[in-house]
């Protein structure tokens, strides 16, 4: 019962639309069976193109895509057996919910009673039983979304692709749909390839996230690792909040390095993508990793001036002018010990060098 770790495999895939610009560059990506993988990236980063190549609506310019070890570049979309949920649902507006769900079954020549059974099951899975005879236009956005999900799953595809399926929903609905899709995935164990530009969506739903930028996968790892240990400054910037210092490596050891900042001060950081002394670098620190007035021993201790205090209920955001960076953000938990945070005050800020990741200078 060992799962196929290369259920979907992108092998050196390139894609260009105009012969001049590569929108996907040398993509190598293995997706395990039953995995929920998210392609995350800004618009134009090539993530949707990858999805379209997998669905069969675009052909790779170079390289090959394998589905369960079979190359699929020459298989037309309707023979791939891949379910897809589109950005704007793409429900057939002239068909009822039942007809929409029955469509993939009818073209597969299922018997009528079997179709009924499968449609029933799919609708109850998205808790829409009883909506069979509604038209898509009579449903709310969230309901349409569920129908679209049910339709993509009703014919038991090997892989389901979702192209920003929650983009058109409002915030609350989006969050509840995230959990719902996640639960559906967990209960039926289908492989899901999910495309989004919303990082919180990616972090809550996925087993693994592939961060795309500029046609390349910048980092492929689990959500926690992606957040805690970004491998380059793009990922650090794109996922979550992050404070950066630009500087130059002055001293390099195995797991520590000294970085001389532009204002002359020196900090100790964790070398990730820098190699030798003299390299330019961007040091990234998560806001919650820097503490104020802490009693713990940390190897970076500096004084900063409070520029702005924003109350957020459970925590307070503090903007500091620290080491020449006027946008240094801190998240301070609201407890009585931190009551002296006022604009203009000087405070002590400390962090561990392990959490200050010296990344590429971009």
């Amino acid at each position: 019962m060992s799962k196929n770790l290369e259920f979907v495999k992108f092998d050196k895939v390139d894609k260009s639309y105009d012969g001049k610009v590569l929108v996907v560059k040398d993509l190598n990506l293995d997706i395990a069976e039953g995995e929920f993988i998210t392609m995350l990236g800004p618009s134009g980063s090539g993530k949707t193109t990858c999805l379209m190549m997998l669905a069969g609506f675009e052909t790779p310019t170079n390289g090959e895509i394998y589905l369960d070890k079979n190359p699929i570049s020459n298989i037309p979309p309707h023979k791939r057996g891949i379910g897809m949920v589109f950005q704007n649902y793409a429900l057939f507006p002239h068909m009822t919910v039942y007809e929409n769900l029955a469509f993939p079954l009818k073209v597969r020549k299922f018997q009528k009673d079997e179709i009924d059974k499968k449609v029933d099951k799919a609708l109850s899975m998205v808790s829409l039983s009883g909506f069979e005879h509604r038209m898509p236009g009579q449903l709310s956005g969230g309901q349409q979304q569920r129908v679209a999900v049910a339709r993509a799953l009703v014919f038991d595809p090997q892989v389901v692709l979702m192209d920003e399926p929650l983009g058109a929903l409002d915030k609350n609905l989006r969050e509840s749909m995230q959990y719902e899709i996640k639960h559906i995935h967990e209960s039926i164990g289908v492989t899901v390839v999910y495309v989004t530009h919303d990082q919180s969506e990616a972090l809550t739903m996925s087993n693994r996230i592939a961060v795309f930028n500029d046609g390349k996968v910048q980092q492929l790892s689990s959500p926690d690792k992606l957040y805690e240990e970004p491998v380059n400054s793009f990922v650090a910037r794109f996922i979550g909040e992050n404070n950066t210092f630009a500087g130059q490596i002055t001293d390099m050891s195995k797991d520590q390095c000294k970085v001389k900042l532009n204002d002359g001060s020196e900090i100790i950081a964790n070398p990730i993508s820098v190699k030798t002394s003299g390299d330019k670098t961007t040091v990234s620190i998560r806001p919650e990793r820097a503490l104020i007035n802490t009693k713990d021993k940390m190897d970076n201790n500096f004084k900063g001036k409070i520029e702005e205090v924003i109350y957020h209920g459970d925590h307070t955001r503090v903007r500091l002018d620290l080491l020449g960076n006027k946008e240094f953000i801190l998240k301070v938990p609201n407890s009585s010990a931190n009551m002296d945070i006022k604009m203009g005050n000087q405070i002590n800020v400390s962090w561990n060098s392990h959490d200050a990741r010296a990344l590429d200078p971009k």
Partner: protein
Amino acid sequence: MSSESKQILTTDGIPLEVSLKKAERKNKIKAFLLVAPLLLFLLITYIFPIGDMLMRSVDDKMVTQMLPKTFESMETWDGKELPPEEVFEAFYLDYKKLIEEKTFGKLSTQLNYTKNGFKSILKKLQRKMKKFEEGNYKEQIMAVHPRWENVEYWRAIKRRAPAYTSSKYLKGMDMYVNEEGKIVNVAEDRRVHRILWIRTLEVAFFVTLLCFLMAYPIAHLLATLPMKYSNLLMICVLLPFWTSLLVRTASWMILLQQQGIVNDFFVMTGLVADDARPEMMYNKTGTYVAMTQILLPFMVLPLYSVMKTISPSLMRAGKSLGGTPFIAFWKVYFPLTIPGIGAGCLLVFILAIGYYITPALVGGASGTLISNQIAFHMKSTLDWSFASAMGLMLLTGVLAIYWIYNKLVGVDNIKLG
């Protein structure tokens, strides 16, 4: 009772409904005044003329007013044998009055419509009547021409007695009321209109079909091509649309005539022999070709406007769900374009059914349509009432098609843009 007790009052104590009506009256008047010019325009240019046409097509008062005494005396005549002396006398007096008023020519024209042969005998009667003696008019009139002794001519006069008649409509369908008052078909060799009606429907149907077959792919291309190319294509569709109808028809004449460009090309490529150039004009082919080209934009535009709204992801969804490209097209795309197809077909069919200039110029004898016949009666025979009757029959046909369409597809589904 309960509604009265619950009546809501404004702060001034006026019932809310009254107050609301008062407040909105001004807006209603303003709105009406805005549409009033158009309403007036429609009344003057559309409703009145159609009403007038309707009246004209059934109006038969002219003869009734010209021969009042005759028709009065004819009331008791059973029409089996020659009418009695009173009828002849009354006819003599009526006709004499017309001669004095110099309007007898109209009578002969009108009676001639009813039965051929009236024109000459009325003219002869007019000449001979000057010498008529008083009394015994029956014999004197019958002596003018043997046709006056024929009871059928008198029956023909009697048939014109009612002030209103449906004879023009019957004539439009190649039927008439015979001597016994029954509606019968005219002799087979004299049936012109029925052929024209059928041909008109046939041409309109096939032109619509041809337009649909050509416009569907064009509209699809227009809706799916990138902006750069679709704009160019749109201009190609619209350019002929902006060109004068006459110019376009004339250019088809240049292309299609026997020594024309198309025939020259056929001969050059060896498709046909030089002495066997096919006739592509002055027959139905010419009408089909020219009308299809001219009406094509009316099909392309509604189709395009509907196709533009169909998201390309629907076709993709159809394919990703396992439908072959054909199934995805047939089950997903095509049904969504039906409102456009309906609008385009209705538009083209209705335009084609009343088309005039193009069939007149390139249709020849076998390619003219009912509208050409209407124009012929308007301009040449001056039988306006007949032209009106046929015009109304055409209008009724169009309305019937609209009704059927509404029953089948539903007019609410039409989308023009």
